[in-house]
């Protein structure tokens, strides 16, 4: 997995908390910095795609590893 600037562990949280927490975390980052989100909610896979599409933040990577979902989001 590529480098990231900040990590957000949203494991155990259900919709819409991973998205809301990610939005908050991104607000603290500079443009171009990358947020690494870890989630266990299976719905978050589609939700982070939709989040990226609508907010302009780029979803660099989305994968499942060790029963968890990992997302790399680059702040627009």
């Amino acid at each position: 997995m590529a480098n990231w600037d900040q990590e957000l562990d949203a494991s155990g949280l259900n919709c819409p908390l991973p998205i809301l927490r990610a939005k908050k975390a991104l607000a603290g980052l500079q443009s171009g910095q990358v947020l690494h989100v870890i989630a266990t909610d299976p719905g978050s896979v589609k939700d982070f795609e939709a989040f990226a599409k609508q907010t302009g933040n780029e979803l660099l990577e989305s994968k499942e590893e060790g029963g968890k979902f990992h997302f790399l989001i680059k702040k627009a």
Partner: protein
Amino acid sequence: MADEQKKLAIIATKGTLDWAYPPFILASTAAALGYEAQIFFTFYGLQLLRKKLSLKVTSLGNPGMPMPMGMDKWFPVLFQALPGMEAMMTSMMKAKMKAKGVASVEELRTMCQEADVKLIACQMTVDLFDMDPSEFIDGIEFGGAATFFEFAGESDICLFI
């Protein structure tokens, strides 16, 4: 920029624990996606604005509500009306939500306020039920149908919940 921002208008009319979720989930998520969002609380929806929430859930009149041990299939409807059943169902629902990582209504409501979702209480309902405005959370506004349409008329999405 402000004119390009999408708008979500919601009318929240229900005051039970289960129906408290859709307005707050949708408004907080919309705000995270960059929407300007507003919720107009009317009739029983005003229960969602109380400082101290005492929202309950009941299976009465709701055959679609799943219950543990398949009780929704065999437990007689009449028994569901017994004293204590509503409190029991409410605490079971809250425990289940916590176990599944679902946010509390308070938490989602706070997130809505932090994201500048405008919360408007229906003045007519407040008067109708003799509600005490000091029992509501801070930062809300009071208004009527025309206030709702001022924002809803410009909205991209408008929901009645």
